[in-house]
């Protein structure tokens, strides 16, 4: 069993409605791109679940969409499976009135498996629990995401500006920000 399959099994209890234990859905078809296209048109949030993607084409093996309150349990599973947190960032979907938080996980050595975890937040109240208690790496990355997007990471020990001046009152990566 590959690391990705093992991880998929470990994640199954979190996504009981999705048949995540089935065969890898896609290996070479660009399904993610297609579904994304439809979503941006229909203004719906992508369904929660685990999707196999073609790593050669997209760079990550698993694409996990979870609910905001599942972010910490997912991080806990990642920690147990020996992953490390590469980065956290946001994406502003202005048309859908949503903010997305993207977590990238990877493994330090051994079999390569990169996992993208995403969650969607309402744009007018972007609050998500912090994963800095699981991965200290998240501390700075979450501060940066707060800095650029104004996303509130609940429970973060020190959620202050990191790259922008401490008295800045704007979030520059929001799509409706004008300097």
């Amino acid at each position, binding site marked *: 069993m590959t690391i990705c399959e093992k991880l998929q099994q470990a994640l199954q209890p979190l996504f009981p409605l999705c048949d995540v234990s089935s065969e890898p859905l896609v290996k070479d078809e660009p399904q*993610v791109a297609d579904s994304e296209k439809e979503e941006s048109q229909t203004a719906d949030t992508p369904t929660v679940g685990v999707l196999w993607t073609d790593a050669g084409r997209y760079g990550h093996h698993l694409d996990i969409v979870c609910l905001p309150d599942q972010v910490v349990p997912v991080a806990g599973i990642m920690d147990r499976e020996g992953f490390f947190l590469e980065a956290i960032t946001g994406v502003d979907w202005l048309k859908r009135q949503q903010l997305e938080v993207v977590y990238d996980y990877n493994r330090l050595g051994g079999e390569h498996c*990169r996992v993208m975890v995403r969650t969607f937040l309402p744009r007018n109240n972007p609050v998500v629990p912090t994963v800095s208690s699981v991965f200290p790496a998240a501390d700075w990355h979450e501060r940066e995401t707060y800095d650029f997007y104004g996303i509130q990471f609940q429970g973060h020990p020190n959620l202050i500006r990191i790259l922008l001046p401490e008295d800045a009152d704007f979030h520059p990566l929001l799509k409706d920000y004008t300097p």
Partner: protein
Amino acid sequence: MSVPLHLRSDEVFVLNLGPQHPATHGVLRVKLTMDGEYIVKAEPVLGYIHRMHEKMAEDGIFAQFMPNTARMDYLHALAFNHGWALVVEKAAGIEVPERAEYIRVITVELNRIASHLLWWAAFLLDLGGFTPLLYAFDDREKIIDLLERVTGSRLTYCYMRFGGVLNDIDDEFITGTRDFIKRLRSRLPRQYHDLVTHNIILIKRIKDIGFVSAEQCRRYGATGPVARGSGINYDVRKNEPYSVYPEFDFDIPVFPEGDSMARYMVRMHEIEQSMRIIEQALDKLPAGPVMGKAPRQLKPDAGYYYSAVETARGLLGHRLVCDGDKNPYKLKLRSPTFSNLSLFGEVAEGMLLADALAFMGSLDLVIPEIDR
């Protein structure tokens, strides 16, 4: 490590290291809470040269961001060029001719040696040794001259293109590179190892100082020589091979000690491995074009793309989100030193100030790359 009990006093004071301090190699500020000579708490304060490259990426078309990449890690700029080219080529499905891939590897590895040489010089300058800087800059100058021949610039390169590279390399570059490798090989044992590596003063300053465990590297996401100096055998060139790296025979130096000396040794061995890669690439260099077919205006399919490259400081990741338009919808730059520096606070706690500066030097910080 913590402050020895008999030295613990009730009084602490705050010391600002930087933002302009020779040991911070750029505008980094570290807010230190000190108990005498011992650090109680260290808090890096970032953002003094933040330029918001990620917003600039969203504002222009894909090709317009290429010059920006060199302004982040100005010491290993070609790896940043390479990373950006790779992620866009992945998203837009652009093929790169084999000769261009070889040239990319040769120039990136030359640039890696230059970066390690400059780190070596600056690190020893932090520790109070001035002479090594002159030797290192002598050798680094040769690399910069070589790269200037093909790229047209000396530091902030904009050499890679989607689908290839800007200029082909010529015979003079090839002979010049071979001569340079021969010269550096002959100088490494004496000017570098005899003078510095085996020097008792250096060993006393950095051996068993600044211990970083493998588990700390994982929790903080540290990569590159920092992780490899803590016994983690991880290098993107081997673990997630890109370009033509699988075609070369080279080793990943790993040292398990986790102290500043281990990180020093990793980088010194990496210089030798990079020379091996360059030699093999020059031997096997195929003929052909250096630029493939790429559309003038790129409109990649909507989707999430990720690509990683190994820079001199660790894993550089590009998370690109496309919405089918001619601009990147979102670009996140996962710069290696941002994560590497985040463990500084935990490790520096309880250290002597002078040791913490040696430890900071061994992390190989490039501030523009942290602040982006």
